[in-house]
């Protein structure tokens, strides 16, 4: 029985430069701020940053795993509040969790949280799933 307020156990996804390259190729987003450290710094960023849409895709994986697969996700929204900073030679965490916000039969709304190195990176992150 799923109830409003239930917490879904958080999970850590690890992000490194290799994953950014893979996401760039899979998504078509080859913006150099996600791959080229010198370029990222030249535009005022602290280092290479992850694609916001990669963090959202990983949060989506967390949601779809809980709901029963990628076909279960009907609505999904997020705000990109801070970048995930990915230094060379390191893996940084993306820690995703969620709380049940609404239950209407199999239709469940979730409020999702996502942090990296303790910093909130996604805000206003919500999903509607049909849980199987």
């Amino acid at each position, binding site marked *: 029985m799923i109830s409003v307020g239930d917490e879904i156990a958080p999970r850590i*996804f690890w992000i490194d430069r290799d*994953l950014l390259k*893979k*996401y760039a*190729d*899979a*998504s*078509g*987003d080859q913006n150099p701020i996600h791959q080229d450290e010198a370029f990222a710094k030249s535009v005022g960023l602290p280092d290479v940053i992850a694609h*916001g*849409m*990669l963090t*959202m*895709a*990983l949060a*989506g*994986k967390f*949601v*779809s795993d809980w709901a029963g*697969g*990628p*076909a279960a*996700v*009907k*609505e*999904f*929204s*997020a*705000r*990109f509040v801070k970048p995930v900073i990915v230094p060379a030679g390191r893996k940084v965490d993306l820690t995703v969790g969620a709380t049940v916000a609404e239950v209407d039969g199999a239709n469940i709304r979730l409020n999702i949280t996502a942090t990296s190195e303790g910093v909130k990176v996604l805000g*206003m992150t919500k999903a509607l799933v049909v849980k199987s």
Partner: protein
Amino acid sequence: MLNPDSVGRTFHSAKSFPVTASEIAAFAAVIGEEDLHVAPPTFSIRISLEQSHDLLSDPQVGLDWSRVVHGDQKFEIYRPIVAGDVLACSSTIENYKVLAGNEVVTVRSDLRTGDQLAVSTWSTLVVRA
């Protein structure tokens, strides 16, 4: 600055976007998804963000894409995208405002197979002052 006359206009992509199993597999592999029957929920960004880039960078619209950062993203998925879909994309500039010198633009993209709407997605993009 964005040409205010472009707000509310809808742009229909001239090309269509065939979805292949290998594109879905590559996207799924990044996030560790093993269920390849349908595309992951955010897969359609592959198509919609390129469309948004093309329409907003058009000289008639006039947005400076080089200073764009992604603010918000929303998906409504009426039916999941699957391999073999041939998607048409139409994009509408739904909202535009200037906040503290930053331009904030929301583009809605509708992805259809034939007459069927599969996904609507909204990208809010911020052009840093």
